């Protein structure tokens, strides 16, 4: 299982309805993107971090491992904002207001990522996907996504085992061997995925498969209290951002 999904299954908010967590997590993301980066995104960043490490009880180490991925892209993507090309003063130079622009972008991206991570670290995909039908996503697409989700873990396990076996047979010792092993790994993934699909099809046909995949979804009700609290928090953050904008800029 992937680290974020494993953490979501063990989350303190595992039994909460996905809508509860979406209102809070994705609401924070929308605020981070929509509000002025300073002080709006900074407020969202601090709030998201407090909620993640506090009530949601997400392990800090796991959070950092997931968080550094979008952070790295943001740093790489923000670097070009520091310089300008062309214009009046020579071919290249420092962009006017570049550091402030790059800093705002970093702040906004960092805060927005934490909002999504709050949702991801507390909501397993297996709870979310079946409920997407009610949100208007066609049932066949949800079924394909469900099969993809469940088969991905089996296939990833399979690929890891094949990779270990290749390493044990010195399949990664030289560059040529590494390429050969990698090609074999990709082809094996394809063969195993389709072989598993065929076996699954045979098994389901034996049980009267009619084209719909029924899965058990843990029962949970949308909490009006939690949702109202989340909306109130989001409103407070927006109001604070606008109130502090003047004094802090």
């Amino acid at each position, binding site marked *: 299982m992937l680290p974020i999904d494993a953490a979501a299954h063990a989350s303190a908010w595992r039994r909460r309805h996905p809508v509860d967590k979406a209102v809070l997590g994705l609401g924070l993301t929308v605020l981070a993107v929509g509000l002025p980066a300073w002080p709006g995104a900074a407020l969202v960043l601090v709030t998201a971090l407090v909620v993640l490490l506090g009530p949601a009880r997400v392990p800090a180490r796991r959070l950092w491992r997931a968080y550094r991925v979008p952070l790295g892209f943001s740093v*790489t993507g923000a670097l070009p904002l520091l310089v300008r090309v062309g214009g009046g003063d020579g071919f290249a130079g420092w962009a006017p207001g570049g550091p402030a622009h790059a800093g705002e972008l970093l702040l906004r991206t960092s805060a927005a990522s934490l909002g999504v991570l709050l949702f991801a670290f507390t909501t397993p995909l297996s709870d979310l996907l079946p409920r997407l039908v009610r949100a208007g996503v066609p049932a066949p697409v949800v079924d394909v996504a469900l099969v993809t989700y469940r088969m991905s873990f089996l296939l990833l396990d399979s690929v890891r085992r094949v990779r270990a076996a290749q390493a044990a047979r010195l399949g990664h010792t030289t560059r040529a061997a590494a390429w050969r092993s990698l090609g074999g790994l990709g082809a094996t993934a394809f063969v195993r995925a389709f072989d598993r699909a065929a076996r699954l099809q045979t098994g389901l046909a034996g049980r009267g498969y009619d084209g719909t995949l029924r899965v058990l979804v843990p029962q949970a009700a949308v909490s009006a209290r939690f949702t109202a609290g989340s909306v109130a928090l989001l409103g407070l953050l927006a109001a604070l951002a606008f109130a502090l904008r003047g004094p802090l800029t």
Partner: protein
Amino acid sequence: MVPVSQETGQGASSIHEVLERVCRVMHIAEGFLPPAHAIAWGVASAPFVVHGVRSLTREVREHPESTLLLGAAGAFTFVLSALKLPSVTGSCSHPTGTGLGAVLFRPPVMAVLGTITLLFQALLLAHGGLTTLGANVFSMAIAGPWAGYGVYRLLRRLDVPLMVTVFCGAFVADLATYCVTSVQLALAFPDPGSGFWGALGKFGSIFAVTQVPLAVSEGLLTVLVMRLLVRSSEGELTRLGVLVARTGERAAVAR
């Protein structure tokens, strides 16, 4: 040597490796694009995804067993993007899988499978994001597959050997993804001195360091995978239409 993989939950050993991982597949991170751009790219992607969803729904209604095969295709695409790829520069990264996916499953299906894969990557691996999903879908699930598939079909018509067409398809798909992402970033953050074109040069050059060698690597990997598939999964490739009308050439390639 410490293995670097978010998928296995193990850490990177240096900043260089972290950056390598980040630059590897050009997912635009959450919140990186201004709201208007994020919405615009979502709107631009919508017709392609809706078209793909409609063909997928029709296919599943006519042949219910296709659900499992399409799920397998999605899982394969997801796992392919998790493989560690030795880049020709000596560094390590991951393929996009868009070229191979487009050749095997066709671009309309890839629009849906790519969207599902990008959603999984955003929620399971923190690669990309939900507000930037439209932009990432446009570059990786639409532009990349269509460009790669276009080149693949064109070269097939010109009777170019299968493996050459597969390499070119995968190379162009990867490169198109990288170019479209650079355009998306340049449109969002034009250069103060030279506007869009200057920004395109900046973003293009900073990502070219990793992405151009990666496109070559991905082309090579796709050829290796396809060579093995031609030997081991002829039935599936025929059903998917990769080996349909080229029986004579197929036999020649297989040897």
